[in-house]
């Protein structure tokens, strides 16, 4: 039984003039008549007014507090205006009023999915300014922590992205594994999220006894998660594939011009990985492959992240095998914070501690400016530091990958549906804390 809806039309039309009502009724009749393929009426129906739709800042699919304004024609995005800033905390201003070691605690809060990457990135920048050479064990531990962080960041990124696309099971499996990694961080750094593990010229503390074994045991069971629980559920999943293949696509030349980095750029087929191109720490000594894709869409980004998980696992295992006992900070009392028993037991230790910790002291840096970049899980995390030779930096600027990627949203989403904007955002893994700083 077909209900004749043409009587209800009047309340849907905007104008009340007879002509407008008649026109609307005509369109309505034609549209609901089954089998009628009048192209003109369909075209007339499609001609709608543009709508402005607000997305965020509190929306589950933003994974944080990101906001975007869509200008829509039907469901198609005509214009997209990213509006960051809801987590703007003025980290760069704060940096100018803190010593280098104090600022490490602030870097935790930037990309809160991978705090150790930020810690290591900033410490390396300060050490580049000083021209320090780190002891080997310190470098090994930093590589292990950086790669474990990369694994946990990629897991969350893949899990939440899959969750947005309707694959709930993967989310549970990966968060279980992330929990194990956080347990490992708790053992080595003392806290799960805000690690503040690095110090300029070294680390907070060495690995406790038996920690190497703990990491090894975790690695053994993690391979199964990678292959069975995530890849098995997603790689050949037609629903997942059809949903995100060809979404958020960008060409390699365009991506480079926009400054895209990390897994997103590698998915376009550009083998740009700072661990290979500008080896820092011990990456030139370790054996690993750079994962690249060729399409540059959301699905390739997922595949690249998946491959990087395995490579990071390889790196961790190599480091565990090669690591030897040794000092974890530089042998320089003007830089490295002395041990507590040294501080309480000797006058020299107390003086060094005082000079490094008290206000208006800190490490005396040389005058100059440096830019130091590391491969963080999302891309190139760069630190531009200007020093005027005092204990606090004169200026710190963070080149955050999420910030650049969020600015690319209009290009990536042009002409796509609203739902695809969510898929694109999830595949880029834009972290609000890092984007807004």
């Amino acid at each position, binding site marked *: 039984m077909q209900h004749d809806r043409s009587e209800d039309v009047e309340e849907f039309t905007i104008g009340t003039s007879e002509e407008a009502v008649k026109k609307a009724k005509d369109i309505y009749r034609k549209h609901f008549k089954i089998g009628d393929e009048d192209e003109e009426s369909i075209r007339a129906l499609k001609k709608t007014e543009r709508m402005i739709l607000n997305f965020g800042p509190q929306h589950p699919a933003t994974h944080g507090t990101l906001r975007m304004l869509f200008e829509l024609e039907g469901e198609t995005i005509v214009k997209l205006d990213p509006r960051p800033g809801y987590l703007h905390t003025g980290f760069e201003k*704060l940096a100018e009023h803190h010593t280098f070691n104090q600022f490490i605690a602030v870097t935790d809060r930037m990309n809160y999915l991978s705090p150790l990457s930020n810690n290591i990135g900033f410490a390396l920048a300060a050490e580049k*300014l000083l*021209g320090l050479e780190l002891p080997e064990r310190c470098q090994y531990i930093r590589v292990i922590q950086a790669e474990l962080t990369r694994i946990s960041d990629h897991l969350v990124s893949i899990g939440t992205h899959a969750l947005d696309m309707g694959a709930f099971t993967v989310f549970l499996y990966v968060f279980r594994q992330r929990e194990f990694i956080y347990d490992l961080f708790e053992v080595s750094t003392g806290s799960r999220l805000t690690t503040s593990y690095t110090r300029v010229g070294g680390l907070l503390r060495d690995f406790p006894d038996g920690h190497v074994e703990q990491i090894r045991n975790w690695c053994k069971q993690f391979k199964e998660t990678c292959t069975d629980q995530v890849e098995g559920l997603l790689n050949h999943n037609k629903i997942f594939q059809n949903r995100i293949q060809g979404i958020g696509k960008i060409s390699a030349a365009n991506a480079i011009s926009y*400054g895209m980095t990390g897994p997103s750029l590698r998915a376009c087929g550009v083998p740009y990985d700072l661990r290979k191109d500008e080896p820092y720490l011990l990456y030139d000594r370790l054996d690993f492959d750079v994962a690249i894709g060729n399409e540059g869409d959301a699905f390739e980004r997922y595949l690249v992240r998946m491959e990087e998980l395995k490579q990071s696992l390889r790196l961790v295992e190599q480091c565990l095998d090669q690591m030897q006992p040794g000092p974890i900070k530089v042998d320089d009392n003007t830089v490295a914070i002395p041990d507590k028993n040294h501080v309480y037991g000797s006058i020299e230790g107390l003086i060094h501690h005082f000079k490094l910790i008290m206000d208006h002291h800190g490490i005396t840096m040389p005058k100059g400016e440096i830019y130091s970049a590391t491969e963080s899980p999302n891309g190139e995390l760069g630190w531009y530091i200007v020093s005027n030779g005092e204990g606090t930096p004169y200026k710190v600027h963070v080149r955050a990958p999420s910030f650049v990627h969020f600015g690319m949203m209009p290009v990536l989403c042009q002409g796509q549906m609203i739902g695809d904007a969510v898929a694109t955002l999830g595949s880029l893994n834009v972290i609000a804390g890092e984007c807004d700083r």
Partner: protein
Amino acid sequence: MVDKNLTAEKLKSQFGEAVLRTEEFRKELTVFVKREKMLDVLSFLRDDPEMLFDMFIDVTAVDYLKMEKNPRFQVVYHLRSLKHNQRIRVKVPVSESDLKIPSIHTLWKGAAWCEREVYEMYGIIFEDHPDLRRLLIPETFTHFPLRKDYPLRGKGEREIILPEGS
């Protein structure tokens, strides 16, 4: 791989006085460029086969108020060449009385987004910019918070924006 000294020499011979000076610190090359010739130098850096700085990394500015340099501001561009695996830093001095600089979004597409942040934090106006609005802080904000004469805790404008009881 192209040597850093060669890059500096080539820029100097090509542009003469437009390249004010070059510096090298911790193996990083910094080139100081006059604002008037800036677009020429940057497009040369992008297109010349021996340079090919095709990747846009970052743009920021430094306020040298407390270091007593003249002019007060310097806009800093970081670029990277994927082919030659090189980085370069280009600095353009901008005086306080004439806070204008050409936008480079025609050379690197990513620049427009980052220039908005520099504008809101330092008040440097990018000419021919397609969309020069404030980015991270509200549009009602009237100060430039990363300038050195702006205090850490603000100038009290929070109280103006958010009156008591709101």
